């Protein structure tokens, strides 16, 4: 294959490392105060945020307790369906199978009592990016279930499972990979995108890994991946310096044992959960944690979520929210328990249609989430949502009555209540004054100042203004 040099100059997208310097002991457990802001930060990063009461509950547990509750959730979750309904999956209407499967997953993100499990599911979906544009909806659902079942377990097991996952087998053509006709597509992405990173393997390594991955065929009727020994190449291969008659499990074991792999996973987790462009020493530290844990994702995540660097000012509101984080966070904040049917479409306009990443590289994330189109889609989604009042099914639970019961018709106190519930007070005085101004002043539209006649609608307007602040685009 020709040397393609163009990719590296613009891809992957590199985000902004926060200003300032790294803590002396970035991965040591954090022992400072655990305020409402810290608790909200934890819920946003290790889940999809929450209502004011959720944040208060997390804060009352203290940092170690709140992290344990995420890592080792007690009690049963809601009784979510294991798969989208059959009439969704096997409809003749492809659009319905697509949006129905997306809604099946979004519902779980919104309501689950195990937000970290679902967040890791979303993380692996972006990492092993597979698209419903090529893969049947039922297989996509099965792959999401795989990420949920194994995404907090051992990466070696996960990578082996993904390698024989039906959706992946269809997506990257490993079903066509046989001894007689090797297909390198999957093997190449395992190295470049899933486990090692560009520059950490040779073309011969790709060829030999592809040979090790031969024989895993896909049966269209049963929708299963089946090993056919006759199609498998069991001759000797040399892969990353090791030689033997390797199969799939051997290649996976060799990959995870490489320090470059350990740094690769450490970097991916830090970029997603802590901040963009993490320092090499931070990556190295987490890579060691990951290796010592025996590639245990839950243990590695535990280290991250308890660490000094995670609770540092530099990490606070330092990553743009992905559209899914933004939208599910919005619905959780608003106490909505019902996913609006138009959410998959809205997420598409915001730049992250679930189950449909733009390519096997997944979503770039970071600064790539933010452009005129995607921000406008976020703003208009919030504005449309906030305008809905009960009893409409999609109406957010904004509760103007509860707010004025607490504050009276005192505009500054109303704004205080809104920005503290929605943004943990992460707003400047100017911003508060502008929102107070919205409540109290008649403007060109001719609306009356804040009072008994219009507080329902004015509070909804103030909530929309608050949720559309630039700071609410940051996790």
């Amino acid at each position, binding site marked *: *294959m*020709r040397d*393609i040099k*163009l*990719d590296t100059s*613009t*891809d992957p*997208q590199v985000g*902004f*490392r*926060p*200003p300032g310097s790294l803590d002396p002991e970035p991965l040591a457990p954090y022992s400072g105060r655990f305020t409402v802001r810290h608790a909200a930060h934890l819920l946003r990063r290790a889940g999809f945020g929450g209502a004011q009461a959720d944040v208060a509950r997390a804060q009352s547990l203290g940092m170690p307790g709140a992290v344990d509750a995420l890592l080792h959730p007690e009690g049963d979750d809601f009784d979510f369906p294991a798969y989208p309904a059959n009439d969704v999956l096997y409809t003749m209407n492809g659009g319905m199978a697509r949006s129905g499967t997306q809604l099946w997953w979004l519902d779980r993100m919104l309501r689950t009592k195990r937000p970290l499990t679902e967040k890791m599911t979303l993380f692996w979906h972006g990492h092993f990016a597979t*698209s419903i*544009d090529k893969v049947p909806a039922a297989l996509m659902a099965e792959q999401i279930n795989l990420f949920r079942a194994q995404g907090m377990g051992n990466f070696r097991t996960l990578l082996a499972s993904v390698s024989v996952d039906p959706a992946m087998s269809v997506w990257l053509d490993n079903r066509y990979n046989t001894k007689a006709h090797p297909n390198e597509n999957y093997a190449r992405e395992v190295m470049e995108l899933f486990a090692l990173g560009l520059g950490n393997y040779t073309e011969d390594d790709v060829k030999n890994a592809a040979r090790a991955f031969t024989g895993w065929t896909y049966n269209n009727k049963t929708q299963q991946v089946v090993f056919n020994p006759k199609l498998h190449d069991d001759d000797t291969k040399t892969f990353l310096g090791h030689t033997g008659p390797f199969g799939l499990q051997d290649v996976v074991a060799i990959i995870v044992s490489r320090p470059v792999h350990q740094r690769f996973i450490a970097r991916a987790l830090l970029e997603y959960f802590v901040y963009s462009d993490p320092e090499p020493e931070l990556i190295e530290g987490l890579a060691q944690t990951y290796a010592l844990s025996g590639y245990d994702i839950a243990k590695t995540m535990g280290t991250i979520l308890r660490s000094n660097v995670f609770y540092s000012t530099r990490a*606070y*509101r*330092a*990553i*743009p929210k992905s559209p899914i984080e933004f939208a599910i966070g919005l619905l959780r904040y608003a106490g909505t328990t019902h996913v609006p049917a138009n959410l998959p479409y809205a997420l598409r*306009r915001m*730049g992250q249609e679930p189950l449909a990443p*733009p*390519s*096997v*590289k997944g979503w*770039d994330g970071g*600064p*790539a989430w*933010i*452009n*005129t*189109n995607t*921000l*406008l889609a976020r*703003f*208009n989604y919030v*504005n*449309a949502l*906030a305008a809905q009042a009960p009893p409409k099914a999609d109406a957010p639970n904004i509760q103007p009555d509860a707010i004025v019961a607490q504050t009276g018709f005192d505009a500054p106190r109303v704004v205080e209540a809104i920005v503290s519930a929605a943004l943990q007070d992460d707003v*400047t005085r*100017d*911003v508060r004054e*502008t*929102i107070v*101004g*919205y409540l109290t002043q008649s*403007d060109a*539209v001719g*609306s009356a100042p804040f009072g008994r006649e219009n507080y329902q*609608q004015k509070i909804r*307007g*103030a909530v*929309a*203004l608050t949720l*559309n*602040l*630039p*700071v609410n*685009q*940051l996790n």
Partner: protein
Amino acid sequence: MTNRRSFLASSLGIAVLGGSMPLALMRAAGAQPLPALGASIDPRNVLVVIQMNGGNDGLNTVVPYSDDAYHRVRPVIGVAPNTVLKLDDRIGLNPALASLMELYKEGRVALVQGVGYPNPNRSHFEATQIWETASPERPQQSGWLGRYLDRTYPANVKPPSMFEAVALGDTLPTALVAQHVDVPAIGSLGGYAYNTIKDAKTSAGALYDGAGPGESPYLEMIADTARNAYHGGDALRAKIADYTPKAAYPNDAFSQQLKLAAQLIGSDAGTRIVFVSIGSFDTHANQRAVQDRLLKMMGDGLKAFYADLAAHQIDKNVLAMTFSEFGRRVTQNASNGTDHGTAMPLFVIGGAVKGGIYGDHPSLTDLDNGDLKFHTDFRAVYATVLKNWLGHDPADVLAGSFQTLPLV
């Protein structure tokens, strides 16, 4: 703020969103767009890319009417020789393209035949990504036009207009995915707007306009972009108000998009890159009715578009090119349609194009597994447009080097 921002850009060596950079900073940095390659390239040149979405059947678009093999493989859906709009004694256009034929006769259409790439992909999704990223070998996130924009306007250079490049549609096509140039996707003139709850619009504007830089380097980027999002719709409507269309456009969505494209190009909006799409050309069944209707829509829309541009005396500066993710199988299927295939013709229209036929029609008997063989790589067409029309070094945008065509 300015200092902090230029400090960030230089010390981190990363993109700081050229598309949203304050004008003052641009002046402070003395930033200029990179010069065009050749002095003969008119800097006002505009490129309109037309996506024929779904995989357009090339054989019924440019018909090899005198080839018996064509009539053997297309017994039902074939275009009758006496209806074909003849280009020469071998090929002709589908009669639905009568309007395009008028432009062709005026020497304003270049037909490029047999366009494709090695190891063609028959998945709509993957093939579309390949055409739009111009990267058949490796998946890539940025589009070919996005890279052109990024290279033309590096991180510290703001395009002269926030509508420098525009996608006409609800979401940004991959072709225009750039790293630091912000490309608006405009579904409709009215729909491109910040829609607030009743009376909150003024306050929303105050919040974005007054937003401070904050701690995170992302915050200023978001605030800048939020201002564009908030003001963009009104700015767009104000800018195009001085352009009055001087042709009767058909009422279909595609023609109306071209009308908006003309307004963007001919007005203060100053747009230089437009992406529009028409479809779906995915004609697995009863192809003639569907494809003929779409081809007519495309031809009629383009005729109105160029009449409008000519009336404003800017037609010579506007080049349109079509593409589709793949052509279709040579042999018709059992449903009087065609399935996903490979090579196809594309059209380059208007501007200073040298009208005519480029390349032979692919053979209908020397096939690759039942599919047409390509002879012209699609990236050669891109390279031609980049170099000879936009004055940009193709090697900057396309991996590998491709022979340009003499069509412009």
